[in-house]
């Protein structure tokens, strides 16, 4: 190749956890890196201050994006028209556009997939197999866990079978598990009687001080903002990448990936400043880590990487239902972090031939807002209102269920024909439906809910078994596969069409499984970064 000057070895589009981990790894190993971030940088205290001023957003009903920057050139996801739904199921995931990305307001779950999740087609005849195995990804799960300070239970069988520790790991979790709160202890004891295993949720909250992060003290405020920074957020590695020499440019909305004349490479990355000035940067390699929806949007805007026609398709989430109950004893939910454990009874098994696997996540929330609203609506007032709030809040149990989806090309994000962004570029349309495979899990969930109500002596506060909720776990939109005719990226995360274009987002995952996808996205990103490192 002719001598050519580049602005950087690698341009990383997106400063969320997935992009920042890769940027940090590359910069630390001596590569010149530019990170382009559409949003701005805001410190934790400012977000906390905003949170306290915008009402109760910590429950699922609230808009968790509220305390965060929401620039016209980098809108967060609940801005009207940002996403227009055309399908039977409303799909708008919570998503932030700022340095550090959406892990500013997550619950910190850091799951590994199970080996069987990588072989769904082979084992159960449904969905797609991954082009790589669990063993291929394990070293990068390990690396991501160390970077993020993941806490987990080394004795837990995360396949939900109450067996030996599983899945296999090369080393123990870097951070020990946090003690279960009283609520979670009681929950575990009461459901165990009915044969439901309850396991500690691996998470990115520091149980002990980790690097510069203080230990979690249970503010129960993980989302929308951990007030003390005990919970991992992507800004940690954005800052670490900068310290390692990467250049982070914020308020830089990438709008075009420019192809080389022969179409085989990405020649340049174009971004707009808020003043609508366009800037062109070049790099040997480009890593797009711009979220599972904005990444395919950028590719479609640029007509890049879409020879398969799969860009934007195969959108998956962990849509499911929820149950809120008033148990027969004070449980004291709301002490400790917002999520600590899950019921994994339906995590894996031959049933996956018939229906998606199921994870019941137990939410350690304070129920006072919903309880009070309900009671007032019922006309309860005065001392009786106080007494009932106290009674019900003490016994509040919240469960949010997740179900495995399969990749369906008809579930897709596409460019809007009418809605435009700040720069006049098309916004997103989404068509989304839950397929029969996921729907078949409903009967199992209903039966489980009946069991949980019985085991906890519960009275239904609200049970949703009809409207499919989404869990903000978008996957599949830039799907990974070995066949360039039906997938967007290779097992390396490299575009089938452009040799120097890598994609790192949970959107590359070809199987959804049933656990929060962040850690898998991070491991895939670190794996791509290790491959890029060898080639630069």
């Amino acid at each position: 190749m002719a001598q050519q000057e580049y602005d950087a070895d690698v341009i990383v589009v997106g400063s969320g956890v997935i992009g920042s981990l890769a940027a940090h790894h590359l910069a630390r190993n001596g590569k010149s890196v530019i990170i382009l971030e559409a949003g701005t940088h805001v410190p934790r205290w400012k977000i906390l201050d905003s949170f306290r001023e915008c009402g109760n957003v910590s429950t699922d009903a609230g808009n968790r994006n509220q305390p965060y920057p929401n620039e016209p050139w980098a809108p967060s996801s609940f801005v009207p028209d940002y996403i227009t739904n055309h399908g039977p199921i409303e799909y708008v995931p919570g998503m932030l556009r700022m340095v550090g990305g959406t892990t500013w307001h997550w619950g910190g779950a850091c799951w590994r997939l199970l080996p069987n999740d990588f072989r769904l087609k082979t084992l159960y005849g449904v969905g797609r197999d991954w082009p790589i195995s669990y063993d291929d990804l394990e070293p990068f799960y390990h690396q991501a866990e160390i970077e993020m300070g993941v806490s987990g239970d080394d004795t837990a069988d995360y396949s939900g079978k109450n067996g030996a520790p599983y899945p296999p790991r090369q080393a123990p979790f870097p951070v020990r598990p946090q003690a279960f709160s009283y609520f979670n202890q009681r929950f575990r004891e009461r459901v165990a009687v009915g044969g439901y295993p309850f396991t500690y949720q691996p998470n990115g909250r520091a149980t002990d001080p980790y690097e510069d992060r203080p230990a979690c003290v249970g503010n129960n405020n993980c989302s929308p903002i951990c007030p003390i920074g005990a919970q991992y957020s992507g800004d940690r590695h954005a800052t670490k990448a900068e310290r390692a020499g990467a250049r982070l440019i914020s308020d830089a909305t990438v709008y075009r990936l420019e192809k080389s004349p022969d179409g085989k490479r990405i020649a340049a990355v174009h971004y707009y400043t808020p003043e609508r000035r366009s800037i062109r940067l070049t790099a040997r390699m480009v890593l797009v880590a711009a979220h599972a929806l904005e990444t395919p949007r950028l590719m479609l805007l640029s007509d890049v990487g879409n020879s398969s026609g799969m860009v934007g398709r195969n959108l998956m989430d962990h849509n499911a239902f929820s149950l809120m109950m008033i148990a027969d004893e004070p449980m004291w939910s709301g002490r400790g972090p917002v999520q600590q454990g899950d019921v994994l009874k339906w995590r894996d098994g031959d049933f996956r031939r018939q229906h998606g696997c199921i994870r019941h996540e137990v939410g350690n929330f304070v129920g006072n807002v919903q309880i009070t609203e309900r009671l007032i609506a019922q006309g309860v007032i005065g001392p009786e209102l106080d007494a009932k709030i106290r009674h019900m809040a003490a016994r509040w149990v919240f469960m949010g269920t997740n179900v495995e989806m399969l990749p369906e090309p008809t579930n897709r994000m596409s460019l809007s024909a009418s809605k435009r962004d700040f720069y006049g570029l098309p916004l997103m349309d989404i068509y989304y439906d839950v397929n029969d495979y996921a729907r078949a899990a409903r009967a199992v969930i209903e039966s489980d809910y009946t069991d949980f109500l019985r085991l906890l002596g519960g009275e239904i506060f609200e049970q949703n078994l009809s409207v499919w909720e989404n869990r903000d776990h978008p996957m599949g939109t830039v799907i990974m596969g070995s066949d360039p005719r039906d997938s967007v990226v290779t097992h390396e995360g490299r575009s089938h069409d452009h040799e120097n274009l890598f994609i790192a987002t949970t959107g590359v995952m070809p199987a959804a499984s049933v656990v929060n996808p962040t850690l898998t996205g991070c491991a895939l990103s670190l794996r791509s970064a290790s491959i890029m490192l060898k080639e630069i």
Partner: protein
Amino acid sequence: MAVSLFSAAQSLFRARRVCSLGLSIIASGCIVPFVSVAWAASAGDSRATIDRGAYIARAADCVACHTKPGGVAFAGGYGIQSPMGVIYSNNITPSMTHGIGGWSEAAFARAVREGVSPNGTRLYPAMPYDSYAGMTDEDIHALYVYLQGAIAPVDTPVGPVTRLRFPYNMRNLMRVWNWLYLDRTRFAPRPGETVAQARGRYLVESVAHCGTCHTPRNFMMAAKAGHKLEGAQVGGWYAPDIAAGTHGPLGSWRDDEIEAYLRDGHARDRGVAAGPMGEAVEHSLRYLTESDLQAITAYLRQQNRSDSSGRPVRPTTDPARAYQLDSPDDRLIRHAARAERNATPGLYADRRNYRDIDGGAALYMAACASCHQIDGRGTRDDFYPSLRQSSAVQASRPNNLIMTILAGVHRDGADGAARMPAFRHDLTDQQIAVLVHFVTDRFGSTPLTPSATDVATLRRFDTADLPAEARP
């Protein structure tokens, strides 16, 4: 109040380890040699001698300066910043080629106590040999046996070479310095001292070299005669007067509080060790025996001041430790924050611009109160220390409060780790100045009003976050 930079400039040889980035690496790395079995101890050296040497190495905190960030313990290469250039520490592993493997015990003793290498090269007193000069022959022997016999040789160069600018590059000038200032008297108990007081004097003055930071220096960087342990600036930090006699500033501290502070790095309602003192706790003091901590305390009790030096006598404990969610103090501060917000509502509603927010109560509520609590009383277990009794808040200088806000706290003590986030990227100089005023006004005895320029001045000493290539 202006932050004094004059004494800051004097911190030449005491700005030890202001960089904290690599501390955790050092902390974990330095444990290995001490717990592993003897490397090549000769038959004549008993296990007891090696253990004693290891303990002396801890007490003298050799590892802190003789290990570079991420490097092998005792292999040197750590850059000690000074206004005259960076002074790099030597490899003190028993390497024959790059360390002290070829040194005789007499040569070793001369280097440690007199600052002269076997080849005649003069050391700079960044190596506190003026303190170590008092070390006993027995301890020098044990230290020698330990370093020669119980740690692995590292046969690699330390890396950068110390090159100070003229005239400081003339190492022979140190002959004059030694002639003027080096007290070659070996430690010996004095009549009238208790055993504990004598041991404490030995530890404070010689081995643990407390005076390196806490005793003010003259223009030649030598300890000022007659001002022992009276307090001095160390980089941006201020190492306070640690006299614990009747009129000393630590006079109101109980013995167990002084000992807990040294061992754990914090004492409830007294203060926390941060910055260089946090490092001293992490690398050295937390490993000392109870009897040595008691000895240090006994010696500090002997340090008296003629009067209270105008220092306010503060209440020993806060009777109003309510720990209720809506205490009167809580309400006052919340109302103050509300008033600030109401004065410029648009500024606070802006999700992006945080740099122009300058309400002290609002900043305190957002950046500090989640841990230190709205009323500043911290938590009952001292996991989050009270600001109301904190020595950094009660001090007459804002240095340590400003430096703590900038650099955070990153310290491992005997009872566990303490982490306070660094706000160096998250708060402007003006915001830190406003916060220091708010905190000292509400929780301290004397409101301090540093300017943004004062904060900017101290920020220059906060070097932990420089890009790798810019670090020493």
